[in-house]
């Protein structure tokens, strides 16, 4: 069936699949056919007619030119893209397309990189024969990310098809008819989708352009530096466009294995955070409550002597907390430095409360399949993940799987608004365990020799038709090796994460599906490879004397802390507890790109480190792919790349093995130290032997649970500082979201002010009714302004009307 046929394009003989469109074959051959509406990732609309070519088959010419984007290839075709007839047709189309176009290139942001401009140069006339009035289309405000100039629109409908086919939400449409046709939302609302910025790339003209970088630079003034996006475990490939040492904008770089041709808005627009007013530009030390700048050498000496003194007297009294979005090089050097000082307390799992299964966990957890394989799964079970918010482009792969017929089941504390068919079990955190146990039960996983929490849960659970259906689908998919169970950030923040994992493994064993993890940050897999966990060294080597995990280091305060790339009031599982622990410490050294009130209050020494785009390094994505990048711009002021800071700190401490002269050397050392090990989700021990084995934490069944999800634009210090993202509908702030019935039962109404209390931790906020939230839960996000004074993200909470 897939026998290739031979055709001829512009005299060149080439092979093609029968049924493939002429334009696709020509693109492969490097033969340029002008086009506007065709896009390789979108359906074929064939509405612009720019791609007209002359075709003959077996010597019989087609009477009229044919659109190359919509003409399937058949044996014996001869295509001419530049014959007199083809060129005439293309010129004619061009003339029509320009009739209503304003020809305002000099004041258009797209000028210089505009498909219409380019094609008009090739096919347009110097002078227009059209002297009638031109159409004018009023603009719509599509929100803070996309600028519109709809008079320039040529109705290619790429943006409309993007919404329908890729985003899965149709926001833009073509309304009106003929002369009155226009592209817009028709009702003037802000476009609210986590991938919306892609229409900027798709739009072949200057109708849709990037608002934050509008009029900042001309395309030809920009230097392009390849990079890797720093916000999720996908590691989307990007191009940074730089002018005079400043990142002007970010575009996607095609990589079929990672981001295809897309980019999430978070990765596209977060660069604005680099230029926030609170960048830390010089080392600072606090003396008698006052902050003073000081030279690097002095700052590092102070930090080194302070840390060394505490480590010498009691290494267990020192701890390192590092962002999961730090580079591999930083992670490796940081753990090397700490361990050389004898410090074993180090971790990157900043939002994980439950580390009871560390010993049994896989040494090097990862996604479980290559990213492109996600779309080829037949059944997916997603546990504790707000998928679109956590991993926007991975959500697109899951959507593709679902569109191809995969069954997708989710177990979450609130219902997700998804763009594909799915089955959702929405339950409070304790009941989430029972939902999973019910699926395990439906798979016949009840009887296992010993008792234990997992067996008890399965014993208690009742499988309903939905659980049975999911079980059946997972088993059928497992048989073909196409079943995948993924644990996300809400699972990792769950007080019984170890039980969720044990249940996931139970289900996997019984169904033949694989287990995978959605890693935190940009480099969660890299953190494990680098040995940035308390119980394993580089390459996942087990340690005889494990240290404390992040949660434990803060629950039982240490004397000294090194914080790396994080804000203690926003990036830790329990900000109230963390701030208490840090306030009580003798020494807090914070390496940070931003100078925040919380750091000023809690730290003693601030070391300015380079942020994203300012340092070279490597991220290992969810699929275990190492993606290296160079610095695109110079860090501001005295800020320095993190790996260099750690290296000099190592020298200052008199430690051996800190002589690297480039990040590449650090990387080579990590590879040699076992960093090249392949990630593997096989558990290192019995996942059900959770020590100690009390009743599940969540069995206490509190009256009300806080679900402290991390909104898409609150996940890390950089993205929180991008104003454009914050002002989109997805940039949510603090609120107490309750199911209407839950609110009514508590005598609360929409808009009521409430005092939120988690033990001693308190905050005030307002009630928002939201039927998506499970009964028994209040969704009160973490990482957003106002959440700093609260406790653990998934934990009991009380509400009191004020």
């Amino acid at each position, binding site marked *: 069936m897939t026998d290739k046929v031979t055709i001829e394009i512009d005299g060149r003989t080439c092979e093609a699949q029968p049924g493939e469109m002429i334009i696709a074959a020509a693109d492969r051959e490097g033969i340029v056919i002008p086009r506007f509406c065709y896009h390789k990732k979108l359906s074929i609309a064939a509405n612009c007619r720019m791609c007209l070519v002359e075709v003959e088959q077996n010597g019989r010419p087609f009477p009229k030119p044919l659109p190359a984007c919509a003409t399937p290839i058949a044996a014996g075709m001869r295509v001419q893209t530049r014959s007199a007839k083809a060129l005439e047709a293309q010129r004619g189309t061009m003339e029509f397309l320009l009739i209503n176009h304003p020809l305002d290139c000099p004041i258009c942001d797209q000028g210089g990189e505009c498909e219409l401009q380019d094609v008009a140069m090739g096919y347009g006339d110097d002078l227009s024969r059209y002297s009638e009035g031109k159409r004018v289309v009023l603009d719509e405000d599509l929100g803070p990310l996309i600028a519109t100039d709809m008079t320039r629109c040529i109705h290619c409908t790429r943006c409309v098809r993007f919404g329908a086919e890729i985003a899965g*939400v149709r*926001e833009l*449409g*073509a309304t009106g*008819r003929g002369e009155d046709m226009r592209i817009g939302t028709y009702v*003037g*609302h802000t476009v609210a989708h986590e991938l919306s910025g892609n229409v900027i790339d798709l739009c072949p003209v200057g109708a849709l352009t990037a608002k934050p970088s509008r009029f900042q630079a001309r395309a030809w003034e920009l230097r392009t530096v390849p990079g890797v996006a720093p916000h999720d475990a996908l590691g989307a490939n990007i191009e940074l466009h730089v002018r005079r040492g400043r990142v002007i904008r970010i575009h996607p770089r095609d990589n079929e294995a990672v981001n295809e041709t897309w980019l999430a808005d978070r990765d596209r627009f977060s660069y604005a955070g680099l230029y926030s007013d609170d960048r830390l530009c010089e080392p600072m030390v606090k003396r008698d409550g006052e902050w003073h700048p000081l030279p690097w050498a002095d700052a590092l000496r102070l930090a080194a002597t302070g840390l060394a003194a505490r480590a010498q007297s009691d290494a267990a009294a020192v701890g390192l907390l590092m962002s999961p979005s730090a580079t591999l090089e930083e992670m490796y050097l940081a753990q090397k430095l700490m361990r050389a000082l004898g410090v074993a307390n180090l971790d990157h799992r900043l939002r994980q409360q439950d580390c009871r299964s560390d010993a049994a966990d896989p040494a090097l957890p990862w996604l479980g399949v290559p990213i492109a394989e996600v779309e080829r799964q037949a059944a997916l079970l997603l546990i504790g993940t707000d998928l679109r918010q956590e991993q926007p482009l991975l959500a697109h792969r899951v959507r593709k799987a679902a569109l191809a017929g995969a069954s997708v089941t989710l177990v979450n504390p609130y219902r997700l608004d998804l763009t594909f068919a799915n089955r959702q079990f929405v339950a409070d955190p304790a009941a989430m365990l029972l939902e999973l146990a019910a699926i395990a039960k439906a798979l016949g996983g009840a009887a296992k020799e010993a008792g234990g929490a997992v067996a008890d849960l399965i014993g208690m659970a009742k499988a309903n038709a939905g659980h049975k259906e999911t079980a059946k689908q997972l088993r059928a998919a497992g048989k073909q090796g196409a079943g995948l169970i993924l644990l996300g950030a809400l699972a990792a923040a769950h007080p019984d994460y170890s039980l969720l994992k044990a249940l996931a493994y139970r289900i996997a064993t019984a169904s033949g599906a694989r287990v995978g993890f959605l890693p935190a940050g940009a480099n969660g897999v890299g953190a494990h490879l680098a040995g940035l966990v308390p119980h394993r060294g580089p390459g996942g080597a087990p340690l005889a004397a494990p240290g404390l995990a992040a949660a434990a280091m803060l629950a039982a305060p240490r004397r000294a802390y090194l914080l790396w790339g994080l804000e203690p009031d926003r990036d830790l599982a329990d900000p109230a507890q963390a701030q208490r622990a840090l306030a009580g410490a003798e020494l807090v050294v914070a390496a940070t790109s931003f100078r925040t009130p919380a750091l000023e209050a809690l730290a003693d020494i601030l070391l300015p480190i380079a942020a994203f785009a300012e340092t070279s390094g490597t991220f290992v994505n969810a699929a275990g792919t190492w993606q290296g990048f160079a610095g695109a711009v110079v860090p501001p002021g005295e800020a320095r790349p993190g790996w260099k800071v750690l290296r000099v700190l190592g020298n200052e401490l008199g430690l051996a093995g800190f002589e690297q002269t480039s990040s590449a050397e650090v990387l080579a050392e990590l590879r040699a130290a076992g960093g090249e090990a392949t990630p593997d989700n096989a558990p290192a021990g019995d996942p059900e032997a959770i020590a100690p084995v009390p009743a599940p934490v969540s069995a206490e069944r509190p009256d009300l649970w806080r679900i402290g999800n991390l909104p898409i634009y609150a996940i890390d210090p950089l993205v929180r500082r991008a104003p454009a993202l914050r002002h989109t509908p997805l940039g949510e702030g603090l609120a107490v979201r309750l199911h209407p019935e839950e609110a009514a039962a508590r005598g609360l109404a929409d808009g009521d002010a409430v005092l939120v209390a988690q033990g001693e931790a308190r905050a005030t906020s307002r009630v928002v009714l939201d039927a998506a939230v499970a009964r028994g839960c209040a969704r009160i996000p973490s990482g957003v302004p106002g959440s700093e004074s609260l406790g653990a993200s998934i934990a009991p909470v009380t509400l009191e009307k004020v």
Partner: protein
Amino acid sequence: MGFRDTPAGAAPSPADPQRDKGQLFTPEIRAAIDRAIAQYPPEWRQSAVMPALTLVQEHNGGWLSRELMDDVAAYLDMPAIAVYEVASFYSMYDLEPVGRHKVCVCNSVSCMLNGSEDLIGHVTDKYGVRPGETTPDGRFTLKEVECLGACRHAPAVLVGKTYHECLTPQALDRLIEDLE
């Protein structure tokens, strides 16, 4: 462009699967839309969008508000924008309040060649309404529409649901005079 009865810039109500379809429209309209839906395979519910809009418009004094289009979207499980596209494309849907009658003059090519411009000019002069406008007494709305499919007897005018063909300005006048 723009809609009546909707605060400007408000977010649209997306096709919300949670919305209770049993609460939309009246039981009679629902039954009629359901009959239209039944004409198509079950997965093509959306094919009933045109009859549904027609029904809803008839029960709303001849025009569609944005809320009604949103309701149709919810009822047919389709994105609201897809309903706006249909409603704004066809000239038989009105998105602004209209008069008691609609006088729809075809101005596509056959009718135009046979004098439809004169018909429009005549009505505009005599009753003071341009295409798209309603007489001050609310008696009728003058509309210029695309080909009515009656080219053979052009120029054609649709008044309410009745076709009138081979019209002269005088003949059209008589039709208008007869309107309540």
